[in-house]
């Protein structure tokens, strides 16, 4: 593969990961019916060719349940990461541009959010929204912005000192226009990387909060629900109930993390000529 430089290889890996994740998300939607199907003649089966992930105590196919759970996780992860990244962008820009008072107030808010242990905060927000799907989405989306908005705030503060931004300001270009034309385009790489690197956190927190019972309802085949159900059967040696769903979740999170890392490398100007 001489014709392929390292940028193209990175791009290929990035696309493969994206396609894989989309495939899982779509497969999960189609398998939702099978994931709920019970068959009491086939219960508590260890992994075999017919049931690669085994079956649970109600004879449900663990492979279908795992895929459905992953699909739910991916969809919730994408939604929450997007919302929290947009919040982070807005707050980061506001803190950097709207003067020292707003900056102090917003920094105080960031410290506040970061002061409460993350899981506890997600739990609290999820409670405020009445648990369930809305609870999880709100909890994860509203608690993940501070770190990214700090990065964006720092970036904007630097950009403000750039010659072209100062020139535009001196020329009397309205602030809105300066932000849209000169600042936002420069933030795009940071923002996109930050967005994709939020996915792993979002997915892990969704699973954790659901596992604790503050998230998706027990009827839904989410990974957190599957794992918390598996706890009851661990001591009787049903290892496949916990091993495979968790492993699959780790793989999905790794894929997202890998995508973020690849994207960062692609967008990094220093590596443009490799």
């Amino acid at each position, binding site marked *: 593969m001489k014709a392929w430089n390292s940028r193209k290889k990175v791009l290929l890996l990035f696309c493969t990961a994206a396609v894989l994740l989309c495939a899982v998300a779509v497969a999960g939607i189609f398998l939702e019916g099978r994931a709920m199907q019970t068959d009491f003649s086939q219960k508590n089966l260890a992994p075999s060719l017919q049931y690669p992930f085994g079956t649970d105590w109600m004879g449900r196919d663990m492979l279908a349940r795992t895929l459905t759970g992953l699909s739910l996780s991916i969809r919730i992860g994408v939604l929450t990461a997007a919302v929290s990244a947009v919040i982070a962008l807005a707050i980061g820009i506001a803190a950097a541009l709207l003067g020292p008072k707003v900056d102090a107030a917003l920094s105080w808010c960031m410290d*506040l959010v970061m002061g409460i242990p993350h899981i*506890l905060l997600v739990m609290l927000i999820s409670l405020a929204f009445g648990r369930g799907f809305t609870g999880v989405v709100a909890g994860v989306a509203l608690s993940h912005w501070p770190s990214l908005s700090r990065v964006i705030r720092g970036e904007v503060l630097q950009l403000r000192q750039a010659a072209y931004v100062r020139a535009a300001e001196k020329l009397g270009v309205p602030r809105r226009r300066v932000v849209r034309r000169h600042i936002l385009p420069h933030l795009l790489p940071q923002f996109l990387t930050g967005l994709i690197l939020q996915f792993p956190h979002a997915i892990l927190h969704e699973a*954790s909060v659901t596992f*604790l019972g503050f998230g998706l309802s027990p009827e839904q085949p989410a990974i957190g629900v599957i794992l918390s159900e598996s706890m009851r059967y661990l001591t009787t040696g049903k290892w496949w109930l916990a091993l495979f769903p*968790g492993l699959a979740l780790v793989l999905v999170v790794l894929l997202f993390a890998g995508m973020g890392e690849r994207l960062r490398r692609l967008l990094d100007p220093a590596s443009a000529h490799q």
Partner: protein
Amino acid sequence: MKHRLQFAGKKLLRMVLLLLGVSLAAFLLMSLSPLDPLQTNVGQTALGSMSPEQIEKLQDYWGMNTPLAERYLGWLSDALHGDFGVSLLYRQPVLQIIGQRLANSLGLLFVAWVLSGVLGLALGVTAGCFRGRLPDRLIRGYCLLISSTPAFWLALLLLMVFSVWLGWLPVGLSVPIGVEVGSITLADRLYHAILPALTLSITGVANIALHTREKMIDVMESEYVLFARARGESRRSIVLRHGLRNVALPAITLQFASISEIIGGSVLVEEVFSYPGLGQVAVDAGLGSDLPLLLGITVVTAAIVFAGNLIADLLYGVVDPKIRRGAARS
């Protein structure tokens, strides 16, 4: 010295304000909840068979009839006098419950905190100094894997391997079942804390190691290290004399910032191991809509986190002569 005190005073004031904010935020979030505490704790069927007066009484008990502002101000003035109210689920003073549970958790948290800090620093320094070579790749791979693994699943795996298959360690709880309180030895407690502490340490390492590695790479590429190499200093002496000193400051920040993560992780890990610590009681309080208890736990954990940040800020001055002299000059 005066400046240091002034600096500490300012930080302390900020911390108090943040704690106030935390308590208000937590209070608002919990009281905004559309979940009916009567439905979750008493149950639909029991409620149906009750007279309206009884239900009224219960609603008063769960504080559903008092206006928001009045409830918060009442709580706040009591809290400032050292009374965090009475838990609705356990019917014990909140501070007493938190004290008991924190005593259970504290050893666990502390061991995990120290272990993950020391291991993370060691791994990060090693990876940074062998950048791109085998040790670096192994350590980076490990960190990536661990940071993509949910803490509770790792806890489940360890439980499966060490308690169910090998039978070396107990399945849960902090003390053996069916034994009198008096005859529980320290060894029993330690024996039950091994797995939770191990899980927490394993997960805590990744973040610290990765950040330390970045910093170490910066140091190794700096001109003073190049000069030291040109002078013929050995790698060992470079790491000890230049690397560790320059990594110390960010390492302190990371170490104290990880308190929040360790507490968060303990919520999950304690739930898996049924370890009766602060994290487990937080989950119970949340699921049972026990407002005073969850509020108390949130404020206490936030206070621990902020205290950690404060200590880190004060330690900078002790560790870094530049900051010490800078503060004295200004």
